[in-house]
């Protein structure tokens, strides 16, 4: 039985704000930055109209946004924020602190290129710079997923065996400002799914006073970090359970990755974010011409679902990885992760790395097709960095 709820045409930002409205967190502290701003604007209107009773803090910078949210979450509140690009970079110090303090904060990140030069358009450099921070990271393909995963993230973050903050990445302008139909769930269903927060060590419990943020010398820091590693490993066990409950409640199935026409695919493309929609179109296009191609869309980037990816990619003829960010001086992040995952594969596919879309550069179906053709024609060189849509 597939229940379908009312659909509305919404931008991704409005869909995320709507999810936040239904979650109705205790505290939101956010600072506007293009292209995240509409999320804050919509939510501020909900607050002003009394549609939520969230306490909203109009902080004076992103660094203070994450600091306030850390304070609120430590106090025992369900706290959220949102940001993009340089805003995320500015709060970088506190992003690490949020994860190492094990606070279940959920933050939609509207992906935008990091300066310099200043660019307000989509790429993944902002979130990639946080990949070591200890946050769980999702990348969504469209407005529906942005809405869904914001809701799912709350449940995952607050799970007692996880207790880690979650970043829900949505492509700047493409998802945030593009209008798509989004199926919106009834308020009580969302409320029931996220449930009541159960804080661990709330500051406001004066009967059990706790100290947050002590000084670790070299005798304890390592052990605290090992605990974080364990928590990330737990995510791999807990996420399927949360996803299953999400499916039972809302009818949508989420997983570490989405497999698109992979059953008999010889050549597989791997990517994050909204470009996956275009890749699906190209996969269909090539399939009509008889080519056995498919798409491995990665939903969860941290923790990196190495086991799933290994089992899916082993034995393929060619794997093409598209990265919407660069890691200057090394291979781009998704490619590096995929290649490393395939190190011990019994049969290693040919691999090719393509950087595309930096600073919002549009990626065309023809360009994606060309990458597939490189694979089909046996023209993948594992150590050669290629680019799609770059003017030479």
């Amino acid at each position, binding site marked *: 039985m597939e229940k379908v709820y009312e659909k509305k045409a919404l931008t991704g930002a409005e869909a995320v704000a709507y999810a936040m409205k239904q979650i109705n967190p205790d505290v939101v502290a956010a600072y506007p930055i293009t292209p995240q701003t509409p999320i804050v604007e919509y939510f501020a209107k909900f607050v002003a109209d009394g549609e939520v009773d969230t306490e909203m803090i109009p902080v004076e910078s992103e660094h203070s946004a994450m600091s306030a949210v850390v304070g609120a979450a430590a106090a025992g509140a369900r706290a959220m924020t949102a940001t993009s690009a340089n805003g995320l970079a500015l709060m970088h110090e506190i992003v690490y602190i949020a994860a190492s303090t094990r606070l279940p904060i959920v933050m939609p990140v509207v992906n935008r290129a990091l300066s310099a030069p200043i660019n307000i358009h989509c790429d993944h450099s902002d979130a990639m710079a946080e990949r070591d921070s200890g946050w769980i990271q999702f990348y969504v393909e469209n407005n529906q997923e942005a809405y869904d995963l914001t809701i799912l993230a709350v449940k995952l973050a607050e799970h007692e065996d996880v207790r880690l903050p979650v970043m829900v990445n949505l492509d700047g302008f493409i998802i945030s400002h593009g209008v798509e139909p989004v199926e919106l769930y009834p308020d009580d269903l969302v409320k029931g799914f996220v449930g009541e927060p159960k804080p661990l060590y709330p500051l*406001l419990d004066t009967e059990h*006073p706790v100290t947050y943020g*002590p000084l670790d010398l070299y005798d304890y820091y390592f052990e605290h970090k090992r605990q974080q590693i364990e928590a990330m490993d737990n995510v791999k066990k807990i996420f399927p359970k949360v996803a299953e409950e999400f499916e039972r409640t809302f009818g949508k199935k989420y997983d570490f990755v989405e497999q698109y026409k992979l059953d008999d695919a010889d050549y597989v493309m791997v990517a994050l974010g909204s470009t996956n929609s275009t890749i699906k179109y190209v996969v269909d296009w090539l399939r009509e011409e008889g080519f056995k191609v498919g798409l491995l869309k990665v939903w969860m980037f941290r923790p990196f679902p190495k086991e799933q990816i290994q089992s899916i990619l082993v034995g393929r003829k060619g794997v093409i990885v598209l990265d919407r960010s660069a890691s200057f001086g090394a291979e781009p992040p998704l490619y590096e992760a995929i290649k490393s995952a395939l190190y011990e594969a019994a049969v290693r596919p040919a691999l090719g790395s393509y950087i595309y879309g930096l600073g919002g550069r549009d990626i065309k179906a023809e360009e994606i097709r060309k990458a597939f053709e490189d694979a089909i024609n046996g023209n993948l060189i594992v150590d050669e960095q290629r680019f799609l849509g770059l003017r030479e």
Partner: protein
Amino acid sequence: MPVNLMQLAKEFDKKDPGITQGHRLCPGCGAPIIAKFVLMVAKHLGYEPVVGLATGCLEVSTTIYPYTAWSIPYIHNAFENVAATISGVETAYKALKKRGRIPDKKYAFIAFAGDGGTYDIGIQSLSGAIERGHKFVYVLYDNEGYMNTGNQRSGSTPPGAYTTTAPVGKLLPGKAQLKKNIVEIVAGHENVYAATLSLSEPMDFFNKVEKALKFDGPAFLAVLSPCVRFWRISDDKAVEISKLAVETKYWPLYEYERGVYRVTRKPRSFKPIEEFLKAQGRFRALLARPDAKDIIDELQKYVDARWERLLVLEEATKDKPIR
């Protein structure tokens, strides 16, 4: 009702103020005394303190894992964001109280920070929190330098004081700039209570803490916190040096409340600023310089002018709040 010392002594003979023994601050440090005073007054008035602390001497020395010298809820986040962190805690309290998820207690949200985390790297966070009007008390323990990391200059370091990043050398006479007037910066936010406090005037101290706690908005208390190590004074001199600071007009005791200035201690006679400088080893190199007299004269003119200005402000703003 003003807080009474004997009352406090009888209440806290066995009761824990919130900061405990076993912390590892230097013998004779002003910071734990300041924390003790503030927390005792808060508890005496029936508040349950929740403390935020910026990175610095007080933070590091009281919370070396797995030990903590805090028996009350405490959070350290980072160096520059105690005001933003406490904003979050205070807002969480408002939200959770509204939603009935916590019992209604009389909390006092108190942020402690040194001059590093206040004048310099922390000024944005402090300003934002004050502008937003959170109900919290910010206690600055001003030891006039980044002392926890070995005496680097801060925006609060007085001219001529020896610091490792602005040393008095053959060419340069140490820090050239005067201290930022942090209380005036905070007062510029208008809708605030801001005051200077001294360990040498405990009754004035307690009164101002009480006012700050009861103020329906953000309150800022600047306390001079002598640093035994880097002011190069002996371990037992913290209170004496604080007294000298007040008597030489270096640290005038006054308060600002929504536009109204009040000078709360007017010593009958003052001492020359040179006495304050001579009492501390950190000014030794300055005093040995050939142009020492000129620098001292300039400093004397400054503290005199600043004192006169305070008296004029007190007169001009008497009973004339602007917010």
